[in-house]
């Protein structure tokens, strides 16, 4: 039963990632694309954790943690660069 629940949850996250990819390709503004990429990162963390559950291993935990950190840094840096043109205040 848990194996089936994991598979259904993986399918739901795949659907969510497809919808976010539509917004990534479609987005009228560049920040929409940044937001879609952040949603893809969040969903990918959950997919990695679900795969770790499916294979009953804890090796995937570090991958999920790294993806959380890199997704946050990428989103903040891209949003700052789009918003003000540089990353570090020069005053």
């Amino acid at each position: 039963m848990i194996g089936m629940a994991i598979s259904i949850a993986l399918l739901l996250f795949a659907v969510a990632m497809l919808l976010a990819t539509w917004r990534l390709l479609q987005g009228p503004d560049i920040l929409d694309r940044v937001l879609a990429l952040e949603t893809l990162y969040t969903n990918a963390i959950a997919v990695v954790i679900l795969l770790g559950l499916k294979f009953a291993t804890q090796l995937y935990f570090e991958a999920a943690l790294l993806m959380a950190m890199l997704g946050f840094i990428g989103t903040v840096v891209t949003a700052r660069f789009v918003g003000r043109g540089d990353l570090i205040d020069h005053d």
Partner: protein
Amino acid sequence: MTAAELPRWLEILISGMLLLGGFTAVLGALGLVRFRTFFTRLHAPTKTSTLGIGGVLLGSIVYLSWISDLAVIHQVLIAMFVFMTAPISAHQMAKAMLDANPEMRPPLPGTTEAQAPRHEEGEAGDQAGSGSNRRSQD
């Protein structure tokens, strides 16, 4: 897989948590696709990063703790990190959008559209404020 050792109620609990996370992720992505303005679209995927990630991580904590007879709480690290950083990145994106087009900024409460305080510091802001502005205090 040692799923046969799990009691029935625990299987139902873990499956419910995982499915709750999946449905929340679909809802957040659906909002990301369907909403009209950028700020409403910014609102929708935060459900994914709290309830979606939280449900999956809770299910994973309970399941791995049960089958390994230890308290496996590594996933709390991911949950805390995601919960702390999601508002920061959303704030940065909203600030970038408002900096790029300032006409999307709503007027302050108590002011009409005409006397909304400008961003440029200058004479126009002082006259439009006319006593209710904070610059008149000095």
